[in-house]
């Protein structure tokens, strides 16, 4: 933790005026940033300053600001979501930065996540992967009593470990191959742990993996970067499960 209560930061922010613009870094200096401020609140200050000078603010995605909606997608000093482990950018606070530090801010960079403007990217590819099979086919009203099928605590807890994915895409941004394997694997692993997922198990894994490839995400080469940056700590074992499920589904 910084000992300073008020710090000065030098920002290098990616500015790109639309998908077809080339884009560039722009430098800004912010003074008197309190270390209790969140990273996004620091960007709010930047934008307020820009608008007071009648300039165009920096666009960035954000919503819940409590680490659960998965909207934020900032690469901070080269690391998706920044330096604090298991923390989405919106939960990162300025106390993790030094006085006079230079901070580089970029969007996720991946072929499957085209840039819309500045730090905002298009992540609809994730929805299409889910659409391919990330569900249990059951119509509303069809369900048996919730306790009709017991699920051991161990399996339910393990399913939950995968189900907590917030769909932010940091795994893709950190991967040298821009692979979406952790994201896709997390849903496959969640449903593979539960009896409800069993009937569509084979169909699901094949459809989701194929969609992932179709979207232009790369393959997994076991770098493990995704697990390191995942803000909710999803284990790379999700990818192992996805592969096992995939191989099983072929036979």
């Amino acid at each position: 933790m910084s000992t300073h209560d008020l710090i000065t930061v030098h920002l290098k922010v990616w500015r790109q005026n639309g998908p077809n613009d080339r884009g560039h870094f722009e430098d800004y200096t912010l003074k008197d940033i309190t270390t209790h401020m969140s990273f996004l609140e620091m960007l709010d200050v930047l934008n307020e300053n820009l608008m007071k000078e009648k300039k165009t603010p920096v666009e960035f995605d954000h919503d819940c600001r409590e680490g659960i909606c998965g909207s934020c997608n900032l690469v901070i000093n080269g690391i998706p979501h920044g330096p604090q482990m298991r923390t989405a950018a919106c939960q990162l606070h300025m106390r993790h930065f030094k006085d006079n530090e230079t901070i580089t801010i970029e969007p996720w960079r991946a072929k499957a996540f085209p840039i819309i403007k500045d730090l905002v990217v298009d992540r609809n590819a994730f929805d299409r992967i889910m659409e391919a099979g990330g569900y249990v086919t059951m119509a509303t009203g069809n369900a048996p009593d919730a306790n009709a099928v017991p699920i051991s605590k161990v399996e339910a807890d393990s399913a939950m470990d995968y189900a907590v994915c917030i769909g932010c895409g940091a795994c893709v941004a950190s991967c040298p191959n821009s692979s979406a394997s952790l994201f896709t694997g997390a849903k496959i692993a969640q449903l593979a742990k539960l009896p409800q997922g069993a009937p569509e198990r084979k169909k699901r894994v094949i459809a989701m993996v194929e969609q992932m490839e179709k979207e232009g995400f790369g393959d997994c080469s076991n770098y493990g970067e995704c697990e390191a940056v995942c803000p909710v700590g999803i284990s790379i074992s999700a990818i192992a499960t996805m592969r096992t499920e995939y191989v099983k589904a072929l036979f």
Partner: protein
Amino acid sequence: MEVASKKSTFKWDSKIPTGPLTEKWKTHKNNIKLVNPSNKRKYNIIVVGTGLAGASAAASLGELGYNVKAFCIQDSARRAHSIAAQGGINAAKNYANDGDSVWRLFYDTIKGGDYRSREANVYRLAEVSNSIIDQCVAQGVPFARDYGGMLVNRSFGGAQLSRTFYARGQTGQQLLLGAYSSLMKTIKSGKVKMFTREEMLDLVTVDGVSKGIISRNLVTGKINRHAADAVLLCTGGYGNVFYLSTNAKNSNVTAAWRCYRKGALFGNPSFTQIHPTCIPVSGEYQSKLTLMSESLRNDGRVWVPKAKNDKRHPNDIPEDERDYYLERIYPSFGNLVPRDVASRNAKNVCDEGRGVGPSGLAVYLDFRDAIKRDSEQAIRERYGNLFEMYEKITDENPYKVPMRIYPAVHYTMGGLWVDYNLMTTVPGLFALGEANFSDHGANRLGASALMQGLADGYFVIPYTVGDYLSGITPGDVNTDHEAFDQAEKAIVGEIEKLLNIKGEKTILDFHRQLGKIMWDKVGMSRDEKGLNEAIAEISALRKEFWENVFVPGEPATYNKYLEYAMRVADFIELGELMARDALARPESCGGHFREESKTPEGEAKRDDENYAYVSAWEFKGVDTPPVHHEEPLVFENVKLTQRSYK
């Protein structure tokens, strides 16, 4: 000051079915009209918002065979703010064998709402609660279970039973992802078409009947027209009118507000829930408040020092110098009193000068005794993610030092007025979930918002929308209709106007200023003088906004601050209506506390003789006071008592 325009001759029809309470919903389902399966494909339905209510409604209606268009402002349907709900969802399963029943859940919910909601609606909510749990489990929602594989429950504020189902501290996320998965499945089947980053900016009506919407593509700025036979508004609450709240930054009232301006009545706008356990404000720059789930009150003990201005470290304050004020004042409920009671008491002890932390606007939530009793590991298993979140924000370790908490705006019980079928006063326009006013009265009990959102979407609207649709001709209005021309023109004009003001103050300046007026004068405690001042101040702020705001950028691009400007403009108008509504209700009830109406002990004093009604407001123009209507509430099954948690 004139609070409201003269009463009009508006006729109520809340369409509550006749017959005994326990049979109403069954009878109603047997009697409402159906749409033939092969005819369903002829009807187009628009669903705005993809939170619990919207996603569940869109998926369920698509499954039935209707053509659904679903809209969300985020980049994915999965990001709606339901995702952030932490604690749990109630149901009357009685799995805990502690004597729960549909009746008890109904009774607790209507009592918790301080008798300002309809018996029939609340009973139906309790009745369908069990099906929601079944539905979610079948989708693969990993609720907490015991070693035998059965579901476990916990208790939640305001209930003396364990009826709350949960998935760690991320119940909302798991329920939303369940609904989202059903939505994705229905999109794949071709019955739902999804529009992400697309914001509804107006409702299109023809002869007073809802026929579609005008939306803006938030990436290109293009204004689009969508015609439909029914429009379902599932756009959540309006807590951000206070600027600081636990809502997501993009949560807003715009879609609902524009429906109000098109003739839908707004029910109980002043009924706001101030949640007792949030992380306190730390500075002027603060952009939002973070909730710490109320489930923490199951194990945490709330206290402040007995002495005023006690600046000692909490761990240095001996036991006999601590005031566990909730346990002291409310011995039977203790730390588990409902939210409104817990919030008001926190405010009281801080007003007495016994608040803690740098601002003096906080109380302690202490886990020392629970850790001693159950072990740190046990507490970690129950609340690990919440403790982690607390530490990230405050840089303090709640396993070692008590948490500091303070109330914050969390949920809005008010919303568009709807009848038993969830239809607003504009035929063909429905409101679901937090966007409507219907089930929580003047105060919502914990773990009942998720229940209501999913009840409306999965188990109410699929039946009731058919009753309306069966009486109209599908597709009788298309987007070439002049009503669409006019609505689109108005939106284009509004955007141009905003961008051309080029004033000196930022949108945030206005939003902060509005929030301060709302929190000080229309917040946890309200009085006539303050409310009158608020109305005047907000009205002046509105004028200043339209003369002096600076909105950057261009209309036909991605422009988040333009979106924000339109939302703040609507919040300003809403704030004024909230103050009027609070002024028109001189009683205290639930989250609405009027200084003029309290018991000798300082508790809220309801006035059932004069105010047992729903206030519903009719828009008459921005500069004309709205018309105030009253829907009387009839209680045939519950006994109205002053709530006591002592």
